[in-house]
């Protein structure tokens, strides 16, 4: 792996931990949530290299992280949200949003449209991954209760 990518992974760990502190996650859960952030970017780099499509990679990573969150939620007896929201922090398309803003500012219509669509695609892929896993887990949960 390249030096920059390792740096990114470390940065995503620190960033997720920062958010976990802001959301008042404590103890072991703080650590698990931050590791989730690290994992999400690690998987993103790997999958993106293998597939070459950012949007698909976003979707897959979001699925993987949701499963991770479900597992951690069972182990640490905490709501799944705890781990989902912090682990997916590095995946939030902040850079993409910024460049959308800049192209809007520069009055570059075509570019703006392209970037805005890309940002929305990334956000949708992210949320869909979470939704798919949540739906599966609920189905599973229901049939287990019956």
């Amino acid at each position, binding site marked *: 792996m390249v030096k920059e990518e390792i740096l990114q992974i470390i940065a995503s760990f620190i960033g997720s931990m920062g958010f976990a502190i*802001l959301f008042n996650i404590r103890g072991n859960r703080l650590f698990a949530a931050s590791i989730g952030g690290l994992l999400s970017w690690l998987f993103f780099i790997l999958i993106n290299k293998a597939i070459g499509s950012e949007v698909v990679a976003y979707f897959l990573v979001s699925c993987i992280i949701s499963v991770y969150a479900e597992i951690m939620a069972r182990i640490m007896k905490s709501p799944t949200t705890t781990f*989902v929201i912090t682990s997916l922090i590095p995946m939030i398309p902040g850079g993409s949003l910024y460049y959308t803003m800049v192209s809007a500012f520069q009055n570059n219509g075509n570019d703006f449209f392209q970037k805005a669509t890309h940002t929305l695609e990334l956000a949708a892929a992210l949320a869909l991954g979470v939704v798919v896993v949540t739906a599966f887990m609920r189905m599973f949960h229901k049939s287990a209760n019956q």
Partner: protein
Amino acid sequence: MLKLFECAMDIGEQMLISGAEVYRVEESINRMCYAFGAKRVDVFIITSSMVVTIYTNEGETFTQSRRVTTTKFNIEKLHKLNDLSREICEKNLSAEEIRKKLEKAVNSKTFPLWLEFLSSAAIGGAFTLFFGGNFTEAVVSFFVGAVVWLCLYFADRFIPNKIFSKFYASAIATLLAFLSVKFGLIQVEDKVIIGNIMTLIPGIGLTNAIRDLFSGDSIAGLLRFTDAALTALAIAAGYYLIAVVGGVFLW
């Protein structure tokens, strides 16, 4: 029964405030009320209000509603409330016992302010590195992140409108980034701004919105979606303001 019902409502309200998903709150209230011995429970919850009616075996009906105006993510509190609602379903707690535990959960410890301050700064720095900024840019971003936290902190006290406080935090972050370029601390402003946008961006709001939408809580989902979209617009407006005004007067 009425007292117990009130406790369940208060627990639900606090869960909603600390950032729980709508379906979790609905489920918790349902379970708690059935555990109290209700014959039928009708729950309607969106992110900003909740209405619950219960029917008892004695033929009485009770309805209560709550208006929720603030949300502040507090996972520790949510965790404790979740435990409490489970405990209520398993054991027969009296209303006084529940009250005591609820109080404890609501007043659960938070991290000291300086640590929040520091982590906000660290988020700014870390994401500047993350998006490919160099070390100097990360250091600048660290300090900008600290200022942004101060802005949001004071905005929380003096400005009741959350969206406006995001607008002005984004404007200040952009201003500081442009100023550090002007004074030659860094070459380009974009990485510093991106790093600090990450603290303001409603990524979680948007994810939760789509989750709610797909799990059948369409109204709650739409509310969250609107909120996220407006916040994103506010951030963009803050940037726009500085870029335009600065472009005319400063550089």
